């Protein structure tokens, strides 16, 4: 089964194994991973599931809706910023490590 590792700015991390089709945001909520809020339940409405993805990993392009919300993140948007609700385990990646921003709100 796919897995996701979340690395926090304080150096701690958490790895969760998830069902296919689960988003990075939903997986964090289901497993009580701190550092992802996911206020809007995955509608690309709130920008509180901001993550940084590693360079060189092939992922689907940022959609217009995702791009609009990434402009509203609390921590700085970088070139590798994504919304966790838009990336699904099994569809977009099998194993992925993401860095969490300092703050979502």
């Amino acid at each position, binding site marked *: 089964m796919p897995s996701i590792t979340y690395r926090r700015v304080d150096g701690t991390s958490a790895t969760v194994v998830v069902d296919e089709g689960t988003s990075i945001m939903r997986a964090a909520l289901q497993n009580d991973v701190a550092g992802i809020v996911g206020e809007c*339940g995955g509608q690309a409405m709130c920008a*509180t599931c901001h993550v940084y993805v590693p360079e060189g990993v092939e992922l689907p392009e940022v959609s217009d*809706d995702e791009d609009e919300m990434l*402009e509203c993140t609390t921590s700085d948007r970088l070139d590798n910023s994504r919304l966790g609700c838009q990336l699904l385990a099994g569809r977009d990646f099998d194993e992925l490590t993401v860095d969490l921003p300092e703050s979502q*709100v």
Partner: protein
Amino acid sequence: MTATCPFFAGSATAVAEPEYTPYEAPAPLPGTYIADWVTLEDLTRDPFPTFAKLRQEHPVPYVPAAGRYFVTRYEDVHTVDNDPDTFTANERGSLMKKSMGHSMLRMDDPNHAVQRATYGNVLKPKAIKASWRQVFEESYERYAAVLREVGPGVEFVHHFAGPYAAENLRRVMGFENATDQDMIRWSQTMINGTGNYADDPDVWAEAKRSYDEVNTALDEMIAHYWEHPNETLISNIIHTSNGDEVTLANIRANLKMSIGGGINEPRDAITTIMMGLFGEPEQRAAVLDGTRTWKEAFEEGVRWIAPIGMYPRQTTREVELGGTVLPAGAKLGVVALSANRDESVFANADRYDLGREKQPHLAFGGGVHFCAGAWLARSQVADVALPRLFAEFPGLRLDPEQQAVETGWVFRGMTHMPITWDA
């Protein structure tokens, strides 16, 4: 674009009147804590001591006065928001369905998602920047002029906060054939219907009058925007929906919900944040000198006093929540006002404090029903109204000669707020 708009009244998709079936919820299970000492009068006047006691002692009590179990703790509210299979928004016997029709707010996914998609990007940051920010500035100037005309001592809720929010919503939705005062009347009378547990026939009559007026105004604007599309919400909905999954009855109900949900909340956020800053001179100074942002002032304001204090859910199965076993079909009141004061999440929760550790508040709800108007509210309140009011009305403060009134628990905010300034 097809030649014929599928949403004209009388076309194939028109229009079932809202169904309303009264619903008798099951009795609380033996052993359930019954908070029979809670009165609606106390909650309306000042709900916070009641909620603090409940959070501490019985976080999910059955409250006979409200006919609901209250969900008072942050963690339990979060659980309810994120488990719609167990805690449905599609409440049986919902007075909101009777008052406004069956909107997306009383649906679960996937039905809800189909309705929500019709709002597209109209209420989101890009559209705000392109279109609505300028609208908010124009509204501000119009009602700031009213404040100056009446002068120091003016009552602020009815001369500025209410009409400002209503005019902004009117223009975003695209009701060119209505006024700010029409919007306020529609909103308040239909909200009164939603809360008409006493079944007062006069309240239903006023709600029905607004219901019919909105339908008439909407039909007229649909015909107009079918020929003349623009950036408004009504225009977006009719030009991006095909009439199969989304009917005229759906559109009518969704827009009525948004009329009900789009005025009181920014109105109350404005006055609540002003009260917060009036009471904390150092924080006011920090915002005015740029040490703190207006966005922070906004988020802490709606954390401190959530404009939508309570919203309903219903259990689909027997489930334990916060130590209480709820039967299937139980009616819940999810109390955002209380969750946002949960001391286990927010230290010194009763204080308006811009310096507190940042934590996500629940004022906009969570999960798929997260407020669609959140960005509109932030922009009209924190980008436009508050910065301009505090800059352009020096020494802005409550009028010490008059009494201000804060009230409500389903919706909470200032209902009477006389202000003065150094003219």
